[in-house]
């Protein structure tokens, strides 16, 4: 093993600052792309920050590092926050974020593994990330017998309407995939409206528990809570863990927060400028304090 913990130890405040920077990048790239999803990526900023800047073992200079942890984004439409996290980690230059969704770009509208080193899976059609993550985790646990590496999967909450997710949930529980950590971005919105109107998810904690999972429910916009949840998840080795991360869709942009209309559209250039200014001031105020 070349480096058991390649992550620099960062403070909560540093991580919150990074999450804010990722949000700025998301708004900027979406406005430049002129299409794409806003609410989910903004709400997921802390989850991606905690994984890419604190919890995951990975090496942006060596994307195929054999000892790396695996990250699979299942709700591929939230690609902007993944691209932001990867660029800020050092997988590719920040300037490349401006190419999002453009012809010839490595930053495809939905993530394509073959186009960008560091991506572990192709996603977009929903409900397929958990089973791919479970397949990888199965290999690590039962075939390669490697207890060091973990597999992280992020799903949306609307996404788990898909039956494929629950097929994967049963599989992961049956095979005791304690090395699999899934997040559900519980923001209560999907394209057509509230998740509870479109197809009620109800007691998510109860559902996953009944499927045999170790379930944690946290404030998904709280960096400290997420770090703690990941540590607890890794400590439970006989079952997979799902972290139900309650997030605010559009988090950080008050005009967007909680409004499902922002699920699938980008800010205008003007909106992006204004909102980036607010986000930048917020982080500067924090730095001053």
């Amino acid at each position, binding site marked *: 093993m070349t480096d058991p913990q390649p992550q620099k130890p960062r403070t909560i405040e540093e991580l919150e600052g990074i999450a804010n920077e990722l949000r700025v990048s998301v708004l900027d790239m979406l406005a430049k792309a002129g299409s794409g999803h806003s609410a989910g990526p903004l709400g997921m900023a802390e989850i991606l920050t905690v994984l890419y800047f604190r919890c995951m073992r990975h090496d942006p200079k060596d994307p195929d590092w054999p000892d790396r942890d695996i990250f699979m984004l299942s709700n591929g439409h939230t690609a902007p926050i993944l691209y932001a996290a990867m660029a800020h980690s050092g997988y590719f230059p920040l300037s490349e974020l401006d190419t999002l969704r453009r012809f010839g770009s490595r930053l495809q509208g939905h993530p394509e593994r073959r186009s960008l080193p560091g991506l572990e899976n192709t996603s977009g059609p929903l409900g397929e990330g958990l089973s791919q993550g*479970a*397949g990888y985790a199965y290999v690590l646990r039962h075939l390669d017998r490697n207890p060091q590496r973990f597999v992280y999967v992020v799903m949306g909450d609307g996404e788990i309407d898909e039956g494929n997710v629950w097929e*994967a949930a049963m599989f992961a529980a049956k095979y005791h995939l304690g090395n699999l950590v899934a997040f559900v971005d519980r923001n209560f919105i999907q394209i057509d409206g509230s998740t509870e109107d479109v197809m009620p998810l109800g007691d998510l904690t109860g559902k996953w528990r009944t499927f045999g999972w170790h379930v944690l429910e946290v404030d998904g916009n709280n960096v400290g809570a997420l770090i703690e949840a990941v540590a607890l998840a890794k400590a439970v080795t006989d079952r997979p863990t799902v972290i139900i991360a309650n997030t605010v869709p559009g988090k950080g942009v008050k005009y967007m927060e909680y409004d499902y209309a922002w699920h699938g559209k980008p800010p205008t250039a003007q909106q992006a400028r204004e909102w980036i200014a607010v986000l930048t001031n917020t982080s500067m105020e924090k730095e001053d304090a």
Partner: protein
Amino acid sequence: MTSYPLDPDTYDAAVRREPIRMGFGRGLLEAGRQDGSVVALCADLAESTQMGLFARAFPERFIEVGIAEQNLVTVAAGMARAGKTPFTSSYAAFSPGRCWEQIKTTACINEQPVKIIGSHAGLITGPDGATHQMLEDIALMRVMPGMIVICPGDSIEAEKATLAIAKNGLPSYLRVARDATPIFSTPESPFDIGRAYVLREGTDITLIGTGTLTYQLLIAAHILEGRGIAAEVVHAPTIKPLDEETILASVAKTGAAVSAEEGQVAGGLGGAVAELLCEKLPAPLLRLGVNDRYGESGTPGELMETFGLTGDQLAVRTAEFLQRPSASRRV
């Protein structure tokens, strides 16, 4: 002279018969012996699909996913990303029947070498009826960029095809069938992915078959010979990529073609041959198989008869086709 060695009993009533899926079972076992990265995933049909042989030999590399075909192929894609060569098996009606998009996204766009084994394909699934007689799988898989599509003619060839896809590093579809069907090839007969083979030479018409229908075409050609028609039989176990060179060379010689398959001709082998000939060598073509309808319960024999796909019927239909002024250069 064709160099393809046929089983000496091919034209005899005593021809040896074996389910094509048995060849897959043996091939997978051998692939497992040769390569420790081969894993096998099944959706509650391990014995039916002949994966049981592998499961008993390598229990630690056999993964039961339950009745969940979407999960079957996506878990396999994740395992492929982790460095394994996953074989998945179910009835073709369910995989790829149910999980087409999962295969497209997580195996093909994602470039992972997932192997899809569709067992119990075609009409000879028999009494189970229309829902279980997968006739659309060739069309479904052929249209998918990055997918290899193989439909072996008998169990010996299925064994070779299984070993070949274990090594090709690509998403691959292997179509196999339930009931015992005649064995026309031999252990020495060639098999390479992407190659078609001239099993029997002739100058009057090219008969192009895949899967179980190749044997029926051999019988048809044998019957036609008695009527003074020299039919060339081309066996195309790989439907994608199609061996254009072999097919074009044959049709250039004979001037007309008949395709035969145990499935929908639309998008199937018939579709592939029609596309090829239209673009590169326009020639009269008769596509035999299933034409825009579903199957029904019955014995394999009854169904093949109903759809006009026995050797006798193929001979009659070919002779009738050659009567058409446009189809024959002999007239």
